[in-house]
């Protein structure tokens, strides 16, 4: 089969990207709208869960997301029982953490509600009779709960980014070496350049998985 020369054109790639992004955003918009309707038609925990689903379908600059966060904060304040209030705040915090990408949307809200959650957890622990705790233990438990809430278990964002892009880099470099360097007439220049690029990416990758 005669080899076809690849015609590099940015236009179709750009169109493809626009289509994919539009499709992905449309899906998010569609589901956010669906869940916000459910939220508006519900009360109590069902309302909380519906707003949670709105946040979980978040997309950047979505007015529905900020509305859901605002409404959830309002709802959480409305609960009087400790377990209900805790459920509400934990739901809000968890849904926001789940939409974290290379940045954390609504970071200020998480910081604001962490102490409230720590307080509710501490109160709940003291109220659990079999724990044999008193109000004197409050400060100690509160600090420990807050430390748990503020702890970030995710690997370093920077090293994670370096890891995944270096992986793509070294795999691509090897494919480049093979496809361009080992044609019928071996091209040593491509092999050398490709292997150098490979080594750089590979070292970055190793550092990434170690330090992430």
């Amino acid at each position, binding site marked *: *089969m005669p080899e076809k020369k690849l015609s590099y054109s940015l236009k179709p790639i750009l169109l493809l990207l626009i289509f*994919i992004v539009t*499709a*992905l*955003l449309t*899906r*998010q918009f569609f*589901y956010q709208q669906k869940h916000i309707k459910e939220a508006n038609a519900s009360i*109590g*925990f069902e309302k909380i*869960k519906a707003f949670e*689903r709105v946040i*979980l*379908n*978040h*997309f*950047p600059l979505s007015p529905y997301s900020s509305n859901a966060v605002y409404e959830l904060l309002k709802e959480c304040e409305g609960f009087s029982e400790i377990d209900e209030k805790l*459920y509400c705040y*934990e*739901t809000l*915090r*968890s*849904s926001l*953490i*789940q*939409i*974290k*990408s290379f940045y954390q949307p609504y970071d200020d809200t998480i910081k604001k509600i962490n102490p409230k959650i720590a307080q509710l*957890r501490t109160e709940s*622990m003291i109220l*659990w009779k*079999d*724990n044999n705790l008193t109000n004197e233990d409050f400060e*100690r438990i509160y600090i*420990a709960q807050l*430390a*748990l809430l503020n*702890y970030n*278990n*995710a*690997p370093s964002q920077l090293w*994670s*980014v370096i*890891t*995944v892009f270096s*992986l*793509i880099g070294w*795999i691509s470099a*090897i*494919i480049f070496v*093979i*496809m361009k*360097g*080992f*044609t*019928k007439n071996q091209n040593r220049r491509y092999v050398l350049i490709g292997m150098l690029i*490979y080594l750089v990416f*590979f070292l970055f990758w190793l550092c990434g*998985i*170690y330090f992430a």
Partner: protein
Amino acid sequence: MKQQAESPVIILFSIFAFIILFLFYLFSLNPILPTGDAGELITASYLLGIAHPPGYPLYTELGKLFTFLPFGNIGYRVSLIPCFFSILTLILIYLITRILTIKNSIFPLIAVLFLGVSYSFYFQTIIGKFYPVNALIVLLLVLIGIKVIDSGFEKRYAYLSAFLLGILTGLHHTALLMTVPLFIVGLFYFKAFIRSLPLSLLFFFLGFLINLHIYIRNIKDAFLAIRKAKETPYFIDILLRKFYKEGESLQVVTSTLSTFEGFQNAITNFLYMIDANFGYVTMVFFVMGFFYLYRKSRRILLFLSISFLMFSLVLAKITFAGEIKDNEGSLYIVGNQYFIPAFCLYVIFMTAGIYFFVEKIKKLIFLYKTIPLFFIVLPLIFIPMRFSQTGQSNNWVLYYYSKGLLSTLPVSSVLTTYGDNKSFGVWYIKLVGRYRDDVCHLVVFRYEATKWNMEGCKPEVLYKDFYSEFYRNDIQTLVNKKLYYSTIGLSEIHPYFKSFDTIAYGLVYVYFPKSKITEKDRKFVNELNIKAEKFITPYYCLNHGTDDPLTFSVCRFVSIAYLNIASSIEPNLKFGTFALDTTIRYGNTHEPFRVNINIGKENEHYMELYEKIRKYNAREKAFLFP
């Protein structure tokens, strides 16, 4: 072979078909947390950790890349991987079939649509697993094999194959079966092939280096799905799946292929999957495909036949040689996912057969023109059916089950889970979502094990304050404080059976000291049960709209929670009674479950919910139910 210029209409139609399939998958995706391994794979990806053996470093790092997308939630983002890779797999199917049928690109579209809407391919696309990635690399190797046969041996193709096989060690090991057909292609060009072997081995090794992810992340104490207590397993044990003992990679291949035992079952089971996905009638065209390829190129026929044989009967002999007894284990776990490459090759043969048939009736102009169109339209009919019966877009079941499970527990209590669905769901919600991270979550890999995976209770320095008893291995004190909960009820074979008793509560069991349960304790659990109701979400168990048997299974556990709640309410006026004496299955263990409920006005609502959930989630509704 010369390719004819494609008609612009056909090109546009093909692009349109791919767009339709992409949107079909996108809008069918699970919104957050699919059942099965997905929860664990998402967690491992987010934490840049190690999934169950062989660790899947390629998928984990791809998953991490997708978690950076700025929309949706982390679970959904990782689930986008199979969606994109399925489309790429279909593009490869298109290209391979186009090479084989030459004249017209309407035939490749038949292969794409048949595979794209087939049950197993669709199901694997929308549940966040790595099998579409596996299929893509397998098909790349198939394409390379065809290209080598077509245009002569070039060492770079040998190197590329070797490198891709090396990379495949970072995915599911079944894909390595492609080594056999590629080796046979190499034999066609014996001398050149032998000369290319040293560098091929080097490139295989370079691809294999992807597994350094496992080695380094393991010594860094990153998330590891199979870590027991604080042990650090050997890298090679993870890679060779030694954790599974009898399921260890090399042992399972050598032991199952050394006898003919179960071979008949393997054939029957595989044919069952073919029928479920494409219908037996398509086998006529599949056979015709052999004739067509025999005429076209015997080498291609041999290469594709051996590839198909490896991913169908040989793989079935290794993994699928038992009798089909139920619809939850073998069919969905083995049948559905492992055979995706076989199904890809099946549609290639089938489409070649359709092409062969259509060429034979060339003189009958009407049929010649309409038959290909018929085969294009036929699979399209399945799109709405798959979407409404199998689609996962409304499946929040495991997410709300896991969330409900944690929500019902007291602050800073211990929860042990067993089984993929329960453990992986809680891993996701707790380690990715950080929901109720005050709970120390422990996972056991065998029902009777007491050596826990403690990923859900890390770092120790933060949890030690709350669980000093636990870290002193003093479970008794935790039980006395009513802070020890488990999804496992105790049966005689469990080592805790002699020390503890359990009472079912919501979605879990509360542990009590042996033979010391008082009336006060029962009252306490009854109160808890009634309080638990608000945290459980029955809606999605009555509305998930999917025929996934693992979702059914989770919902049946949700239904049991309503029995527990109903049993905690003593009605003033009794309408009737409900007695259940059954067993709950944990792998090979059957734990007795008995409940007696007096039904009255106060609790009949829960009994109704129990019945409705059971009915909606009946096993028989699963698509592959035998």
